[in-house]
C-alpha cells in the first residue's frame, strides 16, 4: 500500500517537476514569475490531443509535436510580452504574464468552442505490471521514463554545454555575463524554449494519465508547480525536481489517507511548513544582496 502510493506520488510529482523547471529556470535568469507557463503546458496537452485524435500519430510523435509548437510559442511570449518590459518595474512583466495567461486560456476556449474537458484517446495500452504488491501501469512507466530522460538531458545541457554554462553565468550575474560577450537575450530565449519543451511534455503526459484536458488545466497545475519550484528553492534546477516530487507524493498520500477534498490543503500546508523553516527553499541559494 505504502509503496503503491509512493509510485503514484512519484509519477504525479514527476509531471509537477517538469513544469516547475520552467518556472525556476526563467526566474533564475530574469527574476520573473512566468504566470503564462501553465498555459504553455495546457497548449502542449491540446496539441498532443489533436495529434493523436486527428492525425492518429503515436505517442512519441505527439510529444515531439507538442514541444515543437510550445517552444516557439514561449519564445514569442517572451519577445512580445516580457522583453519590452525588461527595464521597467518588476511588477510590470508580472502583470503582463497574467495577461498572457488569461489571453491563452480564452483563446483556446474560443477555438475549441466551449470550456468543457476533453478525453484523451488511449494511445498507450492499459497494461499493468506487478512488482510484488506494487502495480505499475504502462502509462506510469512511460511518464517516469520520459520525465527522467528529459531531466537528465536538461541537467547535461546546463552543466556541460556552452549555452548551459552561459545560462548559469547569466542567472548568477546578468550584467557580468553580458560583459563576457554572452548575448543574454539569446540565453533568455533559450531558457524559455527549454522550459516550454518540458511543460509541453508534461501537458501530454498528464493529459494521458488523467484522461482529461481543458483550457483551464494550466491554472491549478501551474500554481502547484510554481509552489514546487519555490519549495525546492526558486532558481535551483535540482530544487524544482525535488519540490515537484515532494508535492506529488504529499498530494497522493493525502488522498490515500482519505482527505480527498483536502488534498490541496495538505500539500500547500506542507509547503508552508517547509518555507517556515527554510525560507529560500530546500536547495535554494541564500539570498545575497548586492551593494
Amino acid at each position, binding site marked *: 500500500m505504502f509503496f503503491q502510493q509512493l509510485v503514484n506520488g512519484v509519477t504525479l510529482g514527476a509531471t509537477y517537476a517538469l513544469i516547475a523547471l520552467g518556472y525556476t529556470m526563467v526566474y533564475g535568469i530574469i527574476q520573473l514569475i512566468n504566470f503564462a507557463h501553465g498555459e504553455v503546458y495546457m497548449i502542449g496537452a491540446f496539441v498532443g490531443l489533436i495529434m493523436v485524435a486527428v492525425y492518429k500519430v503515436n505517442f512519441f510523435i505527439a510529444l515531439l509535436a507538442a514541444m515543437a509548437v510550445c517552444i516557439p510559442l514561449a519564445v514569442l511570449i517572451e519577445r512580445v510580452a516580457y522583453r519590452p518590459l525588461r527595464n521597467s518595474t518588476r511588477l510590470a512583466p508580472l502583470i503582463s504574464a497574467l495577461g498572457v495567461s488569461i489571453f491563452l486560456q480564452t483563446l483556446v476556449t474560443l477555438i475549441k468552442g466551449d470550456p468543457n474537458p476533453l478525453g484523451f484517446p488511449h494511445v498507450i495500452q492499459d497494461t499493468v505490471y506487478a512488482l510484488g504488491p506494487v502495480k505499475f501501469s504502462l502509462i506510469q512507466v512511460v511518464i517516469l521514463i520520459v520525465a527522467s530522460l528529459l531531466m537528465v538531458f536538461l541537467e547535461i545541457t546546463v552543466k556541460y554545454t556552452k549555452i548551459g554554462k552561459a545560462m*548559469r553565468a547569466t542567472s*548568477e550575474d546578468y*550584467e*557580468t555575463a553580458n560583459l*563576457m560577450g554572452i548575448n543574454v537575450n539569446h540565453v533568455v530565449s533559450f531558457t524559455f524554449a527549454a522550459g516550454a519543451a518540458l511543460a509541453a511534455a508534461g501537458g501530454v503526459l498528464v493529459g494521458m494519465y488523467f484522461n482529461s484536458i481543458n483550457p483551464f488545466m494550466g491554472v491549478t497545475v501551474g500554481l502547484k508547480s510554481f509552489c514546487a519550484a519555490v519549495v525546492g528553492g526558486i532558481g535551483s534546477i535540482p530544487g524544482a525536481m525535488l519540490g515537484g516530487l515532494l508535492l506529488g507524493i504529499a498530494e497522493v498520500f493525502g488522498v490515500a489517507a482519505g482527505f480527498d477534498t483536502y488534498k490541496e490543503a495538505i500539500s500547500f500546508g506542507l509547503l508552508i511548513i517547509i518555507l517556515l523553516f527554510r525560507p529560500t527553499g530546500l536547495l535554494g541559494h541564500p539570498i545575497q544582496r548586492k551593494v
Partner: protein
Amino acid sequence: MLLAVENLHVSYGGIRALKGISFEVEEGKIVALIGANGAGKSTTLRTICGLVRAQSGRIEYKGTVVNKVPPYKIVGMGISMVPEGRRVFTRLTVLENLEMGAYSRGSSQEAKESLANVFKRFPRLQERKSQLAGTLSGGEQQMLAMGRALMSRPQLLLMDEPSMGLAPMLVEEIFSIIREINNSGTTILLVEQNAHMALSVAGSAYVLETGEIALSGPAAEMADNPEVRKCYLGE
C-alpha cells in the same frame, strides 16, 4: 589613438554622473583614472563597455564610434573589463569562469591557447581550476577576474578598482601583474582609488572630480603635483 572619449555626458535617474569628459588612451600605455568615490570613474568604464548609455558625446575605439554597441559585442571588438568587486561567477568553477571569458571567441583552439596563457600567468588558478569560484580568497578572485578578462585576448583592458578590499601585499602583487599584462602588449585603462599605486604604474593619468576632468598629464608629473598629493595621495 586606441580609445578617444570626447565630451561624454552620462546621467542616471536625474543625476549627472559625467559632465562632458574627454580623454585619450594611447595604444600600449597604461592610463589611470583617479578620483574620489562618486567622481564618475566607474561610470566612465561602464559607458565604454556599453553597460551604460551615453547621453551625448562620443567614444571612439580604433576609429569606430562604439557608443551604441551593446556590451556583448564590445568584447568581440577587443575591449574587455575587469569589473569592480571582481564579479566572478561564484557558482561556476574556476575553469568555467575562464571559459565564459572566451565566450566571444569562436574557435576552441584559440580558447585553449588563451587558457594556457592565463594559467601560465596565474598558476594558482590552474591548481584550483575545478573549485567553485566562490570558494577562492579575495586575491584569487581578483586574479580570476583578470584571467577571465584576458581570455578574450583584449587589446584594451578596462580595470575597475583592482586593488579594492585586498591586503597591501596582494595589492603589490596585483599591480605587478598589471605591469606584466601591459608589457605583453595590452593597453590598460585603470580606474583606482589607490592613486599612489595607480600613478606608479601608469604612463598618464586623469583626475576626475564630480563628473569632470580636473587635471591630466603624465603620471610622474601628477604624482608631484601638490594638489594631487594633497587630495589623493594623503599628504
